[in-house]
């Protein structure tokens, strides 16, 4: 019961932070709200018993990616965004039915999913040897190929980001001109 209360706490925190992400005008505040949201979600993961995912959420998301955003924000003049209107109101109103439609669909999918939910097979193993070990062993055995592919995607993404973000040389600009 306490666990559920903690879950509710983290959930409320995450939702409030997400609302902050969507509503605040200043990008600095938005980043802070995002950070808060990610930490809250990591809390939800811990409550759900997924320690490994929660830890990685904290390490990768809440630290690495958020810092990345901060870095980028220093590279572009975020002051401009503060001065201008930061939201599209028409689109926001128009998108509400779309979001509601998605909600509806998710509910239906969820209901269908409950009907078809398979029986758990790792419950006992998790109780015995802990969640992180089970996840790790499955990840590095059954999903090893996928794991390697993801690492490759990360490498490609890194190279791409460097290529896109680097400063163009002078000769290159002459060519385009």
């Amino acid at each position, binding site marked *: 019961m306490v666990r559920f209360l903690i879950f509710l706490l983290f959930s409320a925190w995450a939702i409030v932070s997400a609302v902050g992400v969507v509503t605040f005008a200043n990008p600095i505040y938005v980043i802070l709200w995002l950070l808060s949201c990610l930490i809250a979600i990591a809390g939800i993961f811990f409550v759900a018993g997924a320690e490994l995912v929660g830890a990685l959420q904290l390490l990768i998301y809440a630290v690495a990616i958020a810092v990345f955003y901060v870095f980028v924000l220093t590279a572009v003049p975020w002051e401009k965004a503060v001065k201008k209107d930061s939201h599209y109101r028409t689109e926001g109103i128009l*998108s509400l039915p779309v979001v509601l439609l998605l909600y509806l669909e*998710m509910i239906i999918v969820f209901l269908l999913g409950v009907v078809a939910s398979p029986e758990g097979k790792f419950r006992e193993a998790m109780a015995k040897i802990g969640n992180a070990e089970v996840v790790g062993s499955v990840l590095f055995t059954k999903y090893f190929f996928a794991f390697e592919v993801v690492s490759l995607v990360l490498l490609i993404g890194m190279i791409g980001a460097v290529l896109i973000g680097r400063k163009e040389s002078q000769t290159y600009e002459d060519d385009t001109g």
Partner: protein
Amino acid sequence: MKTIPVEAYFVVSMILFGLGILGLVVRRNLITVLMSLEVALNAVNVAFVGADAHMGLVEGQIFALFIIALAAVEAAVGLGIIIAIFRYRYVESTDEITDMRG
């Protein structure tokens, strides 16, 4: 483990996802658009982990890990693109980037 009903995870996930989509649509600044996208991605992670906790599986968590990895890639590439656009155009809000006009 079973004290938290799976419906709760899904409700949280849905609310977060909807907020993420809403932010994706309404934000004017490109960086904040990307941040809203992160919120939506995390909402999916919550759903995966919640379902796992309910059913006693680990595949959802593995998927969540993959999503975190891909979110990192997405953030890296997306922010790189934003920097490149800004360097060439000196703009970073979506209403000024209209080169995709049909």
